[in-house]
């Protein structure tokens, strides 16, 4: 009896860190601004600085020694030390040097040429350092983590981080890697529009089909979701991972710089002029969202130029960009197989939806005034915080998301065979069978791409998977089953088995734009002076979780089948349980592992007895059934 009581004692499954694990944060890692929020008891709170500002500019300034300043202070240094300051780094996540070329001009980045043996990931020269977008994003995440820790008074280990729904695998992986560098466990990567829908739906008790139009600083997403009774089911999603308010700024800046060149009779622009023009353009854009016209001065290199801009001209400058978003909306509505009139509301997300032309465009496409009751800058972080709480302490809400882009493999002649079409609910797995074309072939390569076009080079290359260890057979005899799985974070893994021999092939991944394992390891090492302590803490936490599961399993089994044991056997198991429980309360990982193994060994005969009893009961049930049917036949 005493033992039964122990099972239900609240103190029976304590681990010292469990109190902390309930607190994880939600992060909206934006192109222009980032926001961090936390939710407790279903009440989300955006974390603000001493001035009440929630937005942390996603700008990082580097000192020659490599130390980083993040946020408003970094942004203020942009003009004085343009070579040491980076902004809009999100646009480069998971991207290669050739992508930058197509964005040339928009982005005042100093790109460093690739070095021997590196993957295609972009590297930048900043303040004399050679940095990847992953490292720069990690510095932003670190600053957000610190803001949360200062606010809460203790360390934070886990977070939900939002990404644009339209982010491809490479950009998602880069985001997750950045979090790892910043010392954050990613509980889940949640799509920004889905996070916004969660915040909106829970707050407004919305039911029915809604659209979320999310125009951020550098990315555009549109998602159509069905919300009902705590379920948020994404029906279709689409977007453009390189279209946002930054592009509005750029259109205005170009206009200013053209005027300036005409006025001053020069056409060679300095880097400072471009950065200054972009900053001024941003101010003009914000001003023209509520004023009808304004005048701005560009004062660079001792030369001044004055520029007038009215809203009509501004709207002409950005019209094509807004049209592009609306066209994407239309095709996503078509994908969702929902009539536009059946969409109950359109939620606006992202600072760029403050632009009147965006609002009126959305209104005329959907035929109803858009909703923006929750601050479009904060709604994503609020949703992320709610989901972070749901993932750690449990919840009834359910987010069912989809893949934004089709996943395919390269076939003969540079064509693509689609394996997982876009808008498939995740997690998803699809298997495909391949064979060898040469006798004794033991390896093969699979090139995985993401996108909707028919040819390989029109889509985004994700990775080349090399399968090794295929048993040598005659050509065409091997049956290699390759499984493509996309997890709940939207990340792809590939596994392969040779079917006739059941030999698991080894899969080596060469990410097209990611970091190699070695690079990541080196960065992790550099990033943590106390890397070893951190690793130890992580392993200890894992052992505790595993031991908790083990304790629960054995206690449940005793509860149901305890009568199978005699007194001595029972005492031995109880002692082993107590020993493991005691070890879990301590900090010695080896002690936990040892106690777990002892428990496992001592419960082996018990498990056999339980299986015996189960099978006998099943047989008895079957006999009774047979008798019953015989009886009824008779």
């Amino acid at each position, binding site marked *: 009896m005493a033992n039964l009581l122990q099972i239900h004692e609240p103190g029976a499954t304590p681990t010292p860190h469990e109190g902390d694990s309930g607190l994880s944060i939600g992060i909206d890692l934006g192109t222009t601004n980032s926001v961090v929020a936390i939710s407790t008891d279903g009440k989300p709170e955006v974390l603000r600085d001493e001035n009440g500002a929630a937005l942390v500019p996603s700008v990082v300034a580097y000192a020659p020694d490599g130390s980083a300043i993040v946020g408003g202070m970094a942004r203020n240094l942009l003009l004085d030390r343009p070579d040491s300051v980076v902004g809009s780094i999100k646009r480069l996540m998971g991207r290669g040097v050739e992508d930058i070329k197509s964005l040339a001009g928009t982005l005042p980045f100093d790109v460093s040429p690739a070095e021997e043996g590196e993957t295609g990931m972009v590297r930048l020269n900043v303040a004399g350092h050679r940095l990847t977008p992953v490292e720069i994003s990690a510095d932003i995440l670190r600053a957000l983590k610190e803001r949360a820790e200062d606010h809460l008074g203790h360390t934070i280990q886990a977070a939900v981080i939002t990404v644009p729904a339209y982010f491809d695998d490479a950009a998602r992986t880069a985001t997750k890697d950045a979090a790892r560098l910043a010392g954050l466990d990613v*509980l889940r990567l949640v799509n920004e529009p889905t996070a916004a829908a969660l915040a909106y739906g829970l707050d407004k008790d919305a039911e029915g089909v809604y659209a979320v139009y999310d125009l951020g600083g550098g990315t555009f997403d549109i998602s159509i979701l069905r919300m009902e009774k705590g379920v948020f089911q994404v029906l279709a999603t689409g977007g453009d991972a390189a279209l946002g308010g930054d592009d509005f700024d750029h259109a205005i800046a170009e206009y200013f710089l053209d005027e300036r060149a005409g006025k001053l009779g020069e056409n060679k622009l300095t880097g400072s002029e471009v950065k200054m023009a972009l900053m001024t353009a941003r101010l003009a854009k914000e001003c023209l969202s509520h004023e009808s016209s304004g005048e701005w001065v560009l004062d660079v290199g001792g030369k001044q130029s004055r520029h007038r801009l009215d809203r009509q001209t501004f709207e002409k400058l950005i019209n094509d960009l807004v049209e592009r978003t609306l066209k994407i909306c239309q095709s996503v509505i*078509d994908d969702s197989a929902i009539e536009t009139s059946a969409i109950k509301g359109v939620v606006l997300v992202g600072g760029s939806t403050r632009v009147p032309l965006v609002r009126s465009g959305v209104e005329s496409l959907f035929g109803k005034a858009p909703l923006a009751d929750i601050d479009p800058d904060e709604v994503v972080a609020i949703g992320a915080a709610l989901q972070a709480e749901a993932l750690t302490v449990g919840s*009834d809400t359910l987010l069912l998301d989809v893949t934004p882009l089709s996943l395919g493999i390269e076939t003969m002649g540079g064509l693509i065979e689609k394996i997982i079409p876009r808008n498939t*609910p995740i997690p998803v797995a699809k298997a495909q069978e391949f064979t060898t074309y040469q006798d004794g072939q033991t390896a093969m390569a699979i090139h995985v791409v993401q996108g909707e076009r028919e040819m390989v080079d029109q889509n985004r290359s994700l990775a080349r998977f090399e399968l090794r260890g295929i048993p040598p057979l005659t050509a065409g005899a091997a049956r290699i089953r390759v499984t493509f799985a996309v997890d709940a974070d939207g990340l792809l893994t590939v596994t392969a088995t040779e079917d006739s021999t059941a030999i698991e092939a080894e899969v080596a991944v060469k990410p097209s734009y990611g970091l190699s394992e070695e690079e990541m390891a080196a960065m992790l090492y550099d990033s943590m002076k106390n890397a070893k302590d951190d690793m130890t803490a992580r392993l200890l936490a894992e052992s505790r979780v595993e031991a908790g599961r083990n304790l629960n399993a054995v206690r449940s089994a005793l*509860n*149901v089948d305890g009568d199978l044991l005699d007194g001595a056997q029972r005492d031995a198991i109880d002692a082993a349980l107590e020993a493991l429980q005691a070890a879990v309360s301590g900090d010695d990982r080896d002690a936990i592992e040892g106690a777990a193994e002892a428990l496992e060994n001592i419960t082996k005969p018990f498990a056999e007895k339980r299986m015996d009893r189960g*099978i006998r009961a*099943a047989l008895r049930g*079957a006999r009774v*059934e047979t008798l019953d049917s015989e009886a009824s036949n008779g």
Partner: protein
Amino acid sequence: MNIDQQAEALISCWSCKGPCPQASAFCHTCGAVQPPGQADHFTRLGLDVSFEIDPGVLDSFYFNLQRGLHPDRFATRTPKEKVLSQAQATAINDAYETLKEPLKRADYLVHLKGMGVFPEGCNLVNDQTLLMESIELREALAEAETRHDVEVIAARAADDIATCIRQLSELFAADDIEGACRLTTRLKYLQKLAEEARAQKAKMN
């Protein structure tokens, strides 16, 4: 026979090592999530094997299963439990995606019921009427010049699709799998045509 099946249906729970019914997603003793196991899509979602499906019922069964098994419920659990929950959620999504759409559902049901009967599958086009119909509609679509022309063809396809689904219901109800197989092929063509009409309309925008 019956006895063997009963005895086989028990597996040993990976977590508490005790007996656990094979078809169960969770161990009855310790509550640990189990591997998805083999089951047809209908059984997995708790539905009768039938072409007739109430979309509302399908959704609510699907949501209920995902509420318990989605990886979001296992974010702080052991790696093994995370892997199993992903496998479960993947299997549920696969079943839902297959049964949600009439065409995929019909295709699946024909294979499920006609296993071995139609070794070539349902894609074999030996139906002259279908072939002629499909060529005729294709040509009409290729010659369509205005948005209106395309819309007329799309509307006709939509009508035919609805009729086709109705007839499929009747054939499945009468257990006429061979007939259902033929109609499934027709439905495939019609949906492809509807899709092409949609793409053409999008191009005209």
